[in-house]
């Protein structure tokens, strides 16, 4: 805690947080612009919440209700049939796989990126600039570019059709290192100097001094990686085949079949896949927003 303040790391963040500020509001009178904006904002709110509402209610509708030409806004005769059919499939295994996959990708990314980012920011080793440019150029690369070689590589490593095939490339993706480099740059050199003079070794310095200071950054990266991994449908699609190793996203996608579009079942799958993470999000909302904000501290 004190380390953060000492480092003055989030320099742009140290000012009042909006939560503690109340004096500011009185200045903004209710101008017509503001009224209109808020009306529009409420409209947008409906627009953004509606899909979720439609997933949840849709999952309780019967096939007839779903295919009705006049939409039924609320299922008056709810059915759990969709869920019954969903749980005939190993839906919980899919959910478990997804959580496992995201957690592993998150853990590995945080460790490797924290170390790598620190080295790129503070270690003046040969090839540093080159490596960093490589990371930056590869950052926005869509995974479709390398899908075929990656597939072959995973097959060669006998990892195809295991969660590792998704985890490893996710960890390799350079965004994490980039983010952590930006964070580590905020560490004042004097502190490292002081540690060296005190005779602390590299490992000691990293664990005792660097880690506590970049903790918020790691938090940001953890959240970012978790969500990215959760949403990374493509990599899952090409790497996972077996029903037993599917993720929930893949599971939902595969519920659509060629000769029937069973929206009730698909919505039940979508609800199962999204409600848990939404609950986590709402519970840890503060950490999420703080983590995300931390990520942008250094532009």
């Amino acid at each position, binding site marked *: 805690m004190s380390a953060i303040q000492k480092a003055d790391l989030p320099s742009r963040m140290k000012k009042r947080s909006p939560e503690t500020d109340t004096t500011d509001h009185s200045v903004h009178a209710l101008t017509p612009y503001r009224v209109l904006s808020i009306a529009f904002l409420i409209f947008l709110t409906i627009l953004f919440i509606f899909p979720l509402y439609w997933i949840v209610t849709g999952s309780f509708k019967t096939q007839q209700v779903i295919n009705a030409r006049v939409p039924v806004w609320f299922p008056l005769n709810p059915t759990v049939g969709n869920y019954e059919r969903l749980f005939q499939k190993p839906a919980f295994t899919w959910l478990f796989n997804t959580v496992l996959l995201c957690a592993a990708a998150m853990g590995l990314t945080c460790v490797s990126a924290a170390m790598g980012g620190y*080295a790129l920011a503070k270690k003046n080793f040969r090839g540093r600039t080159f490596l960093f440019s490589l990371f930056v150029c590869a950052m926005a690369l*869509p995974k479709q570019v390398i899908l*075929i070689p990656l597939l072959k*590589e995973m097959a060669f490593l006998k990892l195809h059709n295991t969660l590792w095939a998704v985890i490893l490339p996710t960890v390799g993706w350079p965004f994490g290192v980039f983010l952590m480099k930006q964070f580590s740059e905020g560490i004042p050199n004097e502190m490292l100097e002081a540690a060296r003079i005190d005779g602390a070794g590299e490992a000691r310095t990293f664990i005792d001094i660097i880690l506590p200071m970049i903790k918020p950054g790691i938090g940001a990266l953890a959240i970012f990686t978790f969500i990215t991994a959760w949403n990374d449908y493509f990599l899952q699609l090409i790497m996972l085949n077996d029903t037993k190793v599917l993720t929930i996203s893949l599971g939902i996608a595969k519920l659509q079949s060629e000769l029937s579009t069973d929206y009730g079942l698909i919505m039940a799958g979508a609800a199962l896949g999204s409600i848990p*993470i939404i609950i986590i999000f709402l519970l840890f909302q503060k950490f999420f927003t703080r983590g995300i904000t931390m*990520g942008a501290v250094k532009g």
Partner: protein
Amino acid sequence: MKEARRRENIAGYIFMAPSLLFFLGFVIFPMGMCLVTSFFNYTMTDFSFVGLNNYKEMFGDPIFSKALVNTIIIVVVSVPVTCMFSLWVASIIFKMRPLNTSFFRCVFYLPVVTGSVAVTVVWKWIFNNYTGVLNYLFKSLGIISKNMNWLGDPSTALWCIITILLTTSVGQPIVLYVSALSNVDHSLTEAASVDGATNMQVFWRIKWPQIMPTTLYILVITTINSFQCFALIQLLTSGGPNNSTQTIMYYIYYQAFKLNRYGYGSAMGIILAIIIAVFSAIQFRLAKTDNG
């Protein structure tokens, strides 16, 4: 001195080792393989060197050009729109009471945590020509007279995709802008107001420069996001109708998995990688100079 330098090198590499292992192993190595296979006619049964033929074919392939154009449209439209939209929303909500601010933040972040596939399938249903709620609503409101085939009409399909992409990508920028705006140096804005500056002037002269780093960061993550909109295309339109939603990302997948033309797919991957690398380099330059 030399000894210190050597130690610095070793320490640097040791710290880099884990991330380098993953990065080189699962990004750079496949990238290299991709470059190599792009010179081969590589299918399920064939692997023969064809030089630059794949590249030549690509530039004569009308679907490829269409995909390229669509990809650029998606990025060029969604990135600035996302940024402006989130800045606007943030500028409204950051002044609200804390509880309201976090409520709206949550609302706009919801599609991100719902997951891309779940969001996509529900939108597919909403857009459905016959049973979709959108047509019903628009018809009841008298906006359209007969059902529109949103995803089946070449003139609307891409825009539907961009719209969905927007809803899933504004969450993070809004959170970022809210915090950036709350941290704008208050004394400066107040002083300017006292001096008679209009709201607009205050915004552009004082706030905008201060939130610039946030904007650049948002540009980077939104660009990444826009290049990754694969699930939307695959699950909603498969690149149709009439290739109007074809993107390079999907076309590579299509060539590789439907037609088993791995070499050709790799060649397109290389071109895409070059485009993106240039894009990133420019953005990074911009960020550098502005921070500078």
